[in-house]
């Protein structure tokens, strides 16, 4: 049975799927952070206990983030198809999937970032304020560096969450391992191929999580 799964053709297909998946995950995570990191930071800074409280901005942004987060990914995937077509030119394939992936994960990332940055000790921020630091200086020189280990852990978690989204995208021709799993495992009832996909996905999640923890631990000067 294994030899059936692992014939050369299948092997090439899975290799291709793996690469597509990694491509989608990495690019989407990167773009989600480009959007989510500043938004998360904005949420912390404008919080009522933040360094520049601004209830109007905080509430509005928080509301948009919640709204986007409450839309199930599959629905979002379909709903943003016009936008995807406008940006990428098609709605099929891994590059097209990146658009909904980013839209779905950026708010998630924003909340992860918000959580990490909120862990920074209020006293340290006050110390910086007492030295005459500006808001921007506090963001760059206090909040980001002090939250770094937690941000890295968060990034690992976000990456694995986005990986989960990519497999869902397989149902609508998103490409990658998800599409293989759907095409063979679901439509052709090839449970064995499905199982192999699941094992590969588990392995990727484990590897990302381990690498994330390792880097976070290495970068955290609070331990030892």
């Amino acid at each position, binding site marked *: 049975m294994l030899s059936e799964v692992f014939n050369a053709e299948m092997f090439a297909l899975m290799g291709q799927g793996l690469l597509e998946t990694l491509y989608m995950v990495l690019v989407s995570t990167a773009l989600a952070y480009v959007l989510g990191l500043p938004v998360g930071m904005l949420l912390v800074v404008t919080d009522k206990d933040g360094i520049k409280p601004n209830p109007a901005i905080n509430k509005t942004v928080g509301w948009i983030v919640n709204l986007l987060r409450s839309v199930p990914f599959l629905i979002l995937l379909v709903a943003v198809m016009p936008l995807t077509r406008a940006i990428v030119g098609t709605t099929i394939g891994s590059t097209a999937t990146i658009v909904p992936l980013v839209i779905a994960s950026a708010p998630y990332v924003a909340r992860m970032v918000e959580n990490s940055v909120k862990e920074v000790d209020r006293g*340290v921020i006050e110390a910086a*304020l*007492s030295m*005459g630091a500006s808001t921007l200086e506090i963001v760059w*020189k206090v909040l980001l560096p002090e939250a770094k*280990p937690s941000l890295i852990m968060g990034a690992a978690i976000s990456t694995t969450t986005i990986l989960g989204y990519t497999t869902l995208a397989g149902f609508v021709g998103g490409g990658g391992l998800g599409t293989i799993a759907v095409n063979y495992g679901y439509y052709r009832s090839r449970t064995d191929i499905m199982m192999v996909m699941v094992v590969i996905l588990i392995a990727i999640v484990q590897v990302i999580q381990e690498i994330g923890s390792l880097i976070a631990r290495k970068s955290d000067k609070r331990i030892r």
Partner: protein
Amino acid sequence: MPEIPIIQIENLNKTFGEGEGAVTALDNINLTVYQGEIFGIIGLSGAGKSTLVRCMNLLERPTAGKVLFDGRDITQLSDNELRKVRRDISMIFQSFNLLMQRTALENVCFPLELSGVPAKEARTRARELLATVGLSDKEKAYPSQLSGGQKQRVAIARALATNPKVILCDEATSALDPTTTQSILALLKELNQKLGVTIIIITHEMKVIEQICNRVAIIDNSRIEEIGPVDEVFRHPKSRAAKKLIFPKNELTEEISGNGKFLRLVFDGSQADRPIIANMVLQCGAPVSIAFANTEKIDGKMYGHMIIQLPANPEAERKILAYLDSENIGYEEEEYNA
């Protein structure tokens, strides 16, 4: 030494919250701190000490009143101007508040980076400062690798980096053991004498005030109850709050009974070596109970103080007071059973 004001607080009020739940943390505070002095602010928990010191660099915005630094009302400054002024007013904290992801050296560099000092110059200056606080060998250590006392030394070095005119200390020694407290206080005193930097110390421990402060303000229930030179306030506390702080009630023996008056005696160094109480009892032929006795070093001078309970008999009381007068010993009536 001419007394030049460095910080003047005028009619300062601070209320947290609004309406029903409003909390008045500071109520019409007026005080002046002079250049080069070590000024103590003491009070019990919740008295408003932290709020007061945080109003001095506007970490807390007063609800009303003025805060003058070097003659300028800093409540009127723009954000930008205020940030510049804050470089002249450093602060150290009970919980040290060091950047945990930076080494000791990088922590000291931090305020220098903020004021735009080039990196290399900043490191050189930071090394000097770590040497000043006795931590040259720890420049590469992260805060998590340092003891509480060492962390506070790093914080002091950091506070000195921008050559401030004032250092605010909010319970800077409260998280430290007595020996470490002594060494940190000694360091602050030394810096005050060497650099002439004004130091404002918030504490709830009379010992801290006695050891290094020149003047003290006693704050109770959001108000300043008493202000003056430490030995003055210590020898003749006028307010209840001051008395409460100088003689914590639990140091008095609860079981003291009888209805004789309580007297508080203060001896200075020259009187401390004579057996005053023994002589008094012998000469007056009347017993007294000692409710509290202690010696303190204030501003380098030894003081003894004692609370005694007189016999209820008016004749004996008169004799004892006459004896004290003749021996030139200061006394005040206390109201400890109140």
